[in-house]
């Protein structure tokens, strides 16, 4: 966004003010995530920079909160639970969501708008309402306080993400490619695996990633319907923040920030691959 050559002096000044403003907003967005990383290496049990840390004294830093984390059976168990629930819910949501998206992208789908509205609604209904409703209902059918209950609940929450990403991929999918494959002698199965699947895969994978991170990050529903055996990482963090706030939380937070950087990179690579496959390269 260069300043055009005909810009007046006032405009130039405004331009730079604008850039500074944007920089400040970016700082607001990213700063907090950056700040916690050094804090998680604090040698003292405080949530703030100690003088030793500010003087870059190595004694001010330590890995004790990471050791805490990795030697705590509670945390390790919570991670295990998070993965069990997250992966199961992701698989369920991805399979159900992808199959449904194939139907939804058909031009002949009846009541498409209404159905889409319903499928997206778990994303819009406030979590606490879903959590309360599922708590009441799951209690009645013996699903509360079970892995199955938590997995089903997280599947519900993950479904909108899968449906949205896969239908988006399919809507930009050129159906003439299928006809082309047919006309070139491919049978439907072969067409599906050789033509449809490679083009849809990036959408499915990013939908699955969204579903996974939704489950991995979800605390309200688990808070209501999980029993002690299903304590997930967010629950462990939540009670940690509420009850005994310790820098171990910051160590966990730092690891989660790194996880989200990894996920984001994966998504970005997927997107590029997708565009390359369609013969569009980013500018």
């Amino acid at each position, binding site marked *: 966004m260069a300043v055009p050559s005909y810009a007046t002096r006032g405009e130039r000044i405004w331009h730079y003010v604008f850039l500074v403003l944007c920089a400040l907003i970016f700082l607001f*967005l*990213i700063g907090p*995530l950056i*700040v916690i990383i050094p804090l998680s290496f604090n040698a003292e049990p405080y949530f703030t920079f100690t003088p030793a840390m500010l003087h870059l004294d190595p004694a001010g830093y330590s890995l004790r909160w990471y050791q805490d984390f990795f030697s705590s059976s509670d945390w390790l168990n919570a991670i295990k639970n998070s993965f069990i629930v997250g992966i199961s819910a992701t698989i369920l949501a991805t399979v159900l969501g992808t199959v449904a998206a194939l139907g939804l992208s058909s031009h002949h789908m009846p009541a498409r708008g209404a159905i889409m509205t319903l499928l997206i609604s778990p994303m*819009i209904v406030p979590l606490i*309402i879903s959590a309360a409703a599922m708590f*009441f209902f799951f209690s009645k059918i013996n699903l509360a306080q079970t892995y199955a209950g938590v997995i089903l609940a997280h599947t519900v929450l993950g479904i909108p993400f899968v*449906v*949205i990403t896969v239908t988006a991929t399919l809507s930009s999918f050129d159906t*003439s490619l299928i006809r082309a494959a047919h006309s070139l002698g491919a049978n439907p199965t072969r067409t599906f695996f050789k033509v449809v699947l490679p083009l849809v895969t990036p959408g499915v994978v990013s939908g699955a990633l969204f579903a996974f991170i939704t489950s991995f990050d979800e605390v309200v529903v688990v808070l209501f319907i999980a029993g002690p055996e299903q304590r997930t990482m967010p629950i462990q963090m939540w009670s940690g923040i509420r009850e005994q706030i310790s820098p171990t939380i910051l160590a966990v937070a730092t690891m989660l920030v790194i996880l989200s950087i990894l996920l984001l990179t994966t998504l970005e690579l997927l997107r590029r691959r997708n565009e390359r496959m369609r013969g569009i390269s980013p500018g």
Partner: protein
Amino acid sequence: MSQSAPYPDPAMGAPDDAPTGAGAPSAGLTTADGVPLKKSLRRAVRRSKLKALLLVSPLLAFLVIAFVMPIFDMLWRSVDNPEVSTTLSRTVTALEGWDGQSIPDEPVFAALAADLREGQADRSLGLLASRLNYEKSGMRSAVMGSARRIARVEPPYKAALIDINDAWGELDTWQVIQRESSPYTLSYYLAALDRKYSPSGEIVQVPEYMQVYVNLFWRTLWMSAVITLTTLVLGYPIAFLLANLPLRHSNLLMILVLLPFWTSLLVRTTTWIAILQSQGVLNDMMVALGVIADDARWQMMHNKIGTIIAMTHILLPFMILPLYSVMKTIPPSYMHAARSLGGRPFLSFRRVYFPLTIPGMAAGSILVFILAIGYYITPALVGGQSGIFITNYIAYHMQTSLNWGLAAAIASILLFVVIALYMIFNRLVGVDKVKLG
């Protein structure tokens, strides 16, 4: 979750070299069987309709069971009122035809004694005692205390029960029992709106010193509005910058927007606690810089400010992404044209560019607003007393006070608000245009 991808989706037609037109529509081929074209077409359409429905049906069935039914169950629970009619069934029958003007007579008390005796034997009085206590304080011990002693009570029951607990000799006790004997009630909704039935059965406001929920609904709405506004003010310049930078640079900056979006909500809330608390990073920095004195640290947490700052941060990407996708579609030539026609920069912006971004602002604002009013975690952790939302009371009544009917009623009211907003959003943007960053 944006209504469009943060990256431009150039028209995604078929790659130029894809062979097109090689296969004519299949419907045309079936006429060879001698079936009229029209009929055959209709059959094909019906078949593909069926196929599409079949593909969607597993998911629909799943959602109905795991999501829609729970929601309806909750709505039902907000009016469900079984305690009095089942546990005090004899009393309720005996009360039929009671004039409501004087303390009932012995037959009613005898029925009550029988109900209490049975309830004490099968331990079913606890829920009744809680239910009546919501309507009239003191009923818990009236029910439980009388039940404990009911084995030794001898007729006449009227005198004996009133002797055990004065509440049985009070007119409004019986009015409450009669009123709540119906299997459905609006009491929970009334309570959720700071209202109640007067002894004579009219709906009245509770005294001012008991009013909690209406104020909190309003606070939730206005704080969400403030958060929406701050995300708009902060998000607009960023979206503008991203939309007008060359793609190579904007892609890089977009990562700065998406990273918080992809980071755990609890992590972001934790970071704000570390920053905002009075021994936190920001206050320490201000003290070190000499901006504030050590004993005059800013109170930025456990209040509205904390909630607004943290939630603005958390919801900002939800504003930037839709704004960006709309701005991306505005050709720069519009602004150039406005300028070349002699428009001053700000005038051109206001008259030409800004109006074109209104759909994006509307989409982003409704999205942020809907998400904000349903937030629970962040207000609960950083909001203190003045920064909490109505959602905290849903959790409170679910987990602490155990008044599940009231929790369901508050949740239902919130749900109606969200559904209304969702419909506006749908009308304005269309859910099927929602895309994810």
